[in-house]
């Protein structure tokens, strides 16, 4: 199937400027080379901790930001550097739902104005008139169509999020990017909005990219999931494989850290992986694998060579030198490619070249190998 959205080598570096001349002294590498595809009709979940670049990624694919490098292709057309007018026809097809239902609605506009803004901007005259269409949209997201003339402050958080959703759906988009759509809402309201997104996808055949930090929500809504860490995708897999058989150590640690709402499982703490320390700064990410500073499996090769994102199991791409649960690799050639690129510590014959390579710049802090570690 032709992907709806194809992202290749996407990068966004925010310059840090200092001094009188505002010379650039560095860059925050918020998104640093990611590849993925979104197929029509599916939901891609993007999960990661704060600062991993997931929101920046969302703003890049909706082209609210211009990428520093790489391409974003929507239905086969490269949109990565289009200007305002070039983007306009695509804006109809790509819409966004924002996290904060308080900040994303203009308090001085009525709901009718807010939801009808897309029609005005795109110069579209919907069938039966703007007002009728807005009322239909309000009904669609479960709001009372009579509330057309009310202001955002008259609504609760969950209802405001519904207004945001109605606005995103006004132009019948193909792709909806939702950045933390439910994290500002209470648990009971969260479920209402999650179900609404679900129903709308079924009804309208939408494709979603849902960005969230909550692994339980992501598990519930996604077909495929990308796990991000420090501007990179470390694992990209379908839901079942990812949750039942995570292969990247970070994915495993992340999932084991989620508190399980089950007091009887409290004794089973032994399988929890406690990561030490904090996420390093995206200004100077560690060389090699970015997770090596917190990874319990890190070896010398991890500190020097960046692992590529390779498919180790059907539908499961992992960027790790020492993946978890790697015993049952089923893709022919995956194991070989893994062993070539990433010497397993267990097999001595593969270990030798790694140590030879790692001899020169060892230790976690050589600035030389900072960014583009050679890919094997």
């Amino acid at each position: 199937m032709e992907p709806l959205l194809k992202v290749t080598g996407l990068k966004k570096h925010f310059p840090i400027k200092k001094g009188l001349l505002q010379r650039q002294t560095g860059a925050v590498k918020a998104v640093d080379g990611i590849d993925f595809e979104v197929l029509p009709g599916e939901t891609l979940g993007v999960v990661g901790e704060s600062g991993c670049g997931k929101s920046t990624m969302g703003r890049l694919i909706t082209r609210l930001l211009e990428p520093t490098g790489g391409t974003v292709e929507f239905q086969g057309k490269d949109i990565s550097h289009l200007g305002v007018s070039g983007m306009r026809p695509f804006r109809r097809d790509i819409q966004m739902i924002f996290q904060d239902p308080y900040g994303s609605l203009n308090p001085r506009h009525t709901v009718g104005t807010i939801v009808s803004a897309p029609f005005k901007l795109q110069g579209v005259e919907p069938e039966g008139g703007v007002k009728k269409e807005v009322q239909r949209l309000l009904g669609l997201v479960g709001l009372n169509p009579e509330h057309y003339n009310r202001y955002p402050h008259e609504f609760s958080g969950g209802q405001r999020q519904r207004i945001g959703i109605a606005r995103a759906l006004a132009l019948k988009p193909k792709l909806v990017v939702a950045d933390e759509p439910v994290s500002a809402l209470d648990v009971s309201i969260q479920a209402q909005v999650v179900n609404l997104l679900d129903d709308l996808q079924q009804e309208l055949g939408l494709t979603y990219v849902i960005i969230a930090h909550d692994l339980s929500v992501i598990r519930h809504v996604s077909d495929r999931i990308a796990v991000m860490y420090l501007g990179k995708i470390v694992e990209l897999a379908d839901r079942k494989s990812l949750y039942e058989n995570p292969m990247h150590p970070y994915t495993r640690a992340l999932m084991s850290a989620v508190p399980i709402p089950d007091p009887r499982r409290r004794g089973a703490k032994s399988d929890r992986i406690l990561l030490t320390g904090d996420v390093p700064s995206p200004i100077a990410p560690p060389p090699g694998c970015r997770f090596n500073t917190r990874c319990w499996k890190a070896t010398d090769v991890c500190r020097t060579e960046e692992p590529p994102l390779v498919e180790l199991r059907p539908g499961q791409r992992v960027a790790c030198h020492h993946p978890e649960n790697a015993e049952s690799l089923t893709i022919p050639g995956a194991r070989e490619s893994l062993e070539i690129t990433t010497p397993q510590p267990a097999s001595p014959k593969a270990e030798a070249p790694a140590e030879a390579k790692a001899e020169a710049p060892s230790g976690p802090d050589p600035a030389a190998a900072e960014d583009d570690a050679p890919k094997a």
Partner: protein
Amino acid sequence: MTDKLTKTGAAVGEPVATGSAPSDAFLDVRDLKIHFPTDDGLVKSVDGLSFQLEKGKTLGIVGESGSGKSVTSLGIMGLHTVGQYGRQKAKISGEIWLNGRELLSADPDEVRRMRGRDMAMIFQDPLSAMHPYYTVGNQIVEAYRVHHDVDKKTARKRAVELLDRVGIPEPAKRFDNYPHEFSGGMRQRAMIAMALVNNPALLIADEPTTALDVTVQAQILDLMRDLQKEFGSAVVIITHDLGVVAELADDILVMYGGRCVERGPAESVFYEPQHPYTWGLLGSMPRIDREQTERLIPVKGNPPSLINIPSGCAFNPRCPYADVPKGGITRTRRPELAPAGDRHFSACHMPQEERTRIWTEEIAPKL
């Protein structure tokens, strides 16, 4: 009328009914009411809350925003400005017994001396709870020297010791850092050190991990569990996250509209919940430990306004079973907290057999 009902409710869990006698429980909150007069009307943030907590145990208070859980914690700490007139001034009634002493009627100076030493608090957002102009170490030293007559050197030693205990690397060096130089997780660790510096017998943690990432949250929860074992304090943990309470709490109290709707041992609240609101919370929560359930079962509607709490059972407009008890009783009479199992209480008009049946036959299989 309601007063009487809640009094009886409190008496169910605790044989003390007279109201003024100190109880054996380490922390005993009886019929606590915290109301705020505003221009729009009286906000009944906490409206008749009672619970007990033993030393070395953890109570988890769960509820949505606006259910009164944070107001309760500030009330126990005596941090509301009290008065009859003016805005922002809370009207507080009821009793809070801590270690045999009643706090609400006590002299404010005495409560101030107890605050920090006997009871301490961990706030949700450590960046705003700490003073940005003072080093982290200084703030811990200050908390210590308020209650202990020691010189700066001893206090510094104690602070470094605690920073080390809560897992801050190079504590002696980090002592002189400002809060903004710490990461979110480290700030929360420093907050915990500050709260524990006087070895308080009661620790209240208000959403201690909500602002943190999940891997850091796991570290902090782990730390809190260890520290409780070590210090043996009673802990009240306030959160909206059922996962966090399941991890830490011995007992769980579910709040809705300023009242307790269900209270009991963690295991029975999770496995035999006796209130439709608790069912709603469990049903609307996506689970990471299970294969995708077809659909979440949300609670319809929105949380009530605390100015206009629905008459009868506060949950009745959102309750799918509001019409099960006959005669519209759910809309006219407030249900009292009644026993629903071993140390388990629930405030619902439905008969217990009916609730157990609904839970086992209709709700539990869908979760």
